[in-house]
């Protein structure tokens, strides 16, 4: 029943999620810069605040104040809407992420399905940005993104289904509960699923070594070449929110979610999630980028068959 209490609850949850997203994205941007700096034997941002911790705030203010430039000949509406189509799905995906035993915006009984459905919308925004910019580099980036994200969705879903089969539920919270005794990643069958998940999720959020849609050395900046100011910031926020979400899902599905001794659940959850993010950053700053055909070949000729095989073995084991 829709009551006033319900409404306030919704609003507070919404504000909490949005606040978390903003802070998390800013923190991740700062952290990525720090991680890359230390890998490259530099120091990274050091001026704004302690070790530059407020650097992202300064950048955000700068981006807010920047002039919003629209290229001549851009498809106005599509160009305008694209950043929202990137950010909104990633915000929506927070709805079923279990931060703690009770700390979950909404424990849907089809949580996994919901996340998959919502996060697929992202590609639309990316493609809109590529098309709407009236720039050939952007268009190429958009095309690449569409092809890549759709291809990698297959192994991604297959690896998540393996977990769902073992846990026998689609609810995120119940998947966490099913890992009370041991993490899913310790199970050989699910460990493979976990690896496939991490790989295809990296591709899903366009991170190196799968960052071909924005491949700097080839396409300048890919689909967001023409964006400036706050619109660019929204792409940025969307990217880092997606990064958080895929790591959070990996934590939930494979690393026991918020479960852990002594410390409260939410701390465990964040520790695990940020550890996965660190590994993803570490990978990003180490490897060269794959080429577009190799990327597709990797998805269709390697990851998809293996995840099908894995799924079949899981079914056979469960029978």
């Amino acid at each position, binding site marked *: 029943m829709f009551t006033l209490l319900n409404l306030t609850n919704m609003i507070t949850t919404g504000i909490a999620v949005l606040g978390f997203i903003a802070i998390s994205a800013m923190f991740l941007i700062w952290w990525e810069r720090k991680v890359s700096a230390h*890998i490259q034997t*530099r120091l990274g941002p050091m001026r704004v605040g302690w070790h530059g911790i407020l650097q992202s705030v300064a950048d955000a203010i700068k981006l807010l104040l920047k002039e919003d430039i629209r290229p001549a000949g851009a498809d106005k509406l599509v160009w305008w809407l694209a950043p929202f189509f990137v950010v909104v799905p990633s915000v929506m995906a927070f709805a079923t992420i279990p931060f703690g035993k009770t700390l979950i915006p909404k424990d849907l009984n089809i949580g996994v399905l919901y996340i998959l459905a919502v996060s697929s919308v992202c590609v639309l925004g990316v493609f809109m940005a590529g098309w709407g910019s009236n720039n050939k580099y952007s268009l190429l980036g958009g095309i690449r993104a569409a092809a890549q994200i759709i291809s990698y969705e297959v192994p991604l879903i297959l690896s998540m289904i393996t977990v769902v089969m073992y846990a026998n539920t689609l609810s995120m919270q119940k998947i966490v509960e099913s890992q009370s005794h041991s993490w899913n990643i310790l199970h050989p069958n699910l460990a493979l699923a976990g690896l496939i998940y991490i790989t295809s999720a990296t591709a899903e959020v366009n991170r190196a070594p799968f960052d071909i849609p924005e491949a700097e050395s080839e*396409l300048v900046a890919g689909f967001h070449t023409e964006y400036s100011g706050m619109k660019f910031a929204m792409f940025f926020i969307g990217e880092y929110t997606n990064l958080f979400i895929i790591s959070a899902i990996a934590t939930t599905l494979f690393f026991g979610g918020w479960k852990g001794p002594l410390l409260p659940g939410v701390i465990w959850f964040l520790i695990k999630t940020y550890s996965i993010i660190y590994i993803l950053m570490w990978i990003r700053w180490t490897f060269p980028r*794959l*080429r577009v055909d190799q990327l597709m070949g990797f998805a269709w000729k390697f990851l998809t068959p293996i995840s099908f095989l894995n799924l079949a073995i899981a079914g056979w084991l469960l029978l």
Partner: protein
Amino acid sequence: MADLDIKEKKDIFTEEFLINMGPQHPSTHGVLSLELKLDGEMVLECTPHIGYLHRSFEKLAENRTYTQFIPFTDRLDYVASMNNNLGYCMAVENLLKLDITDRAKYIRVIVAELNRIASHLIAIGTFAQDLGAFATPLFYCFREREKIVDIFNEICGNRLTYNYIRIGGVQSDLPKGIEEKIKNFIKYMRSKIDEYDWLLTYNVIFLARAKNIGLLRKDIAINYSVTGPNLRASGVKRDLRKDRPYLVYDKFEFNVPVGVNGDAWDRYKVRIEEMRQSLKIVEQALGSLPQGDPTVKTGRVHKPAAGEAYFRTENPRGELGFYIVSDGSAYPYRLKIRAPSFSNLAVLPELIKDAKIADIVCISGSLDILMGEIDR
């Protein structure tokens, strides 16, 4: 069915499109502009446009004395200034029929080989950057290059445009204690080259990106007058330091690494191996460095007899030739710079067969062109 076909052809069609890669593009190594004709991701045609950095050095040279032109050679191949200085000064010395002292020869070999390492470091760093290994290998390469630059800063007092090698010798003798620093650097650099092997050379993604890309056949390479590591990667063992030893290169023991296939990976690998060989040369040169005065006393203004000289040296990017015509005055009558990158870039349209956009970046990165000397 037939009707449907006609209708579809009218409504749905594909077309090729032109895209301008550069002169402002993250991976065209300066102000190179490539006009690409694309069919989706595939590149059908590639037309390089150059000249954005044209400063008409050959005309400027006609207004400068022989000594005054040395700082301009720094700005040709600005990541290997020492080698340019060397090539020019040796061409002028050839014209003047001037002999230099043994110590000067050794010092020249040391600085030229160190600069070769610095140049190759930039080449492989930017190549890795082009392949999308974002900034990390580049930073490692610059970290090592910084040590060379520091050594040069101590030797000659500048960090990029050295102007160290002069007609008749060098600017000034090596400063005290620099030998020790160079020796330390050699030891340090050896371990770092092994590190690059771990990080890049045999990395599976790197191999997938660079192997069998931009195959440059031996005969095509020679026909296009490609020189330097690009030619050697195609399997031609041609190195002026071995073939026509200038300075004291014939006294040192070193190999000329050659590639097998002539693909982008081979070009990269040849550079890595060349750095090892250069370290070897520097080590030997330091070991047998003779004492004495490195400069020959010459007049302030050089007036070579009327005549002409063409002199080639082995630069990090290929064979740099200076063709100097003198009319007996203090100014060169004509000075032609045969820049290695110029010919190396000319072969690019030949390499793009069946390439994708990502490969274009990979190929042009592996050719290691430098606009400063192409446009002159």
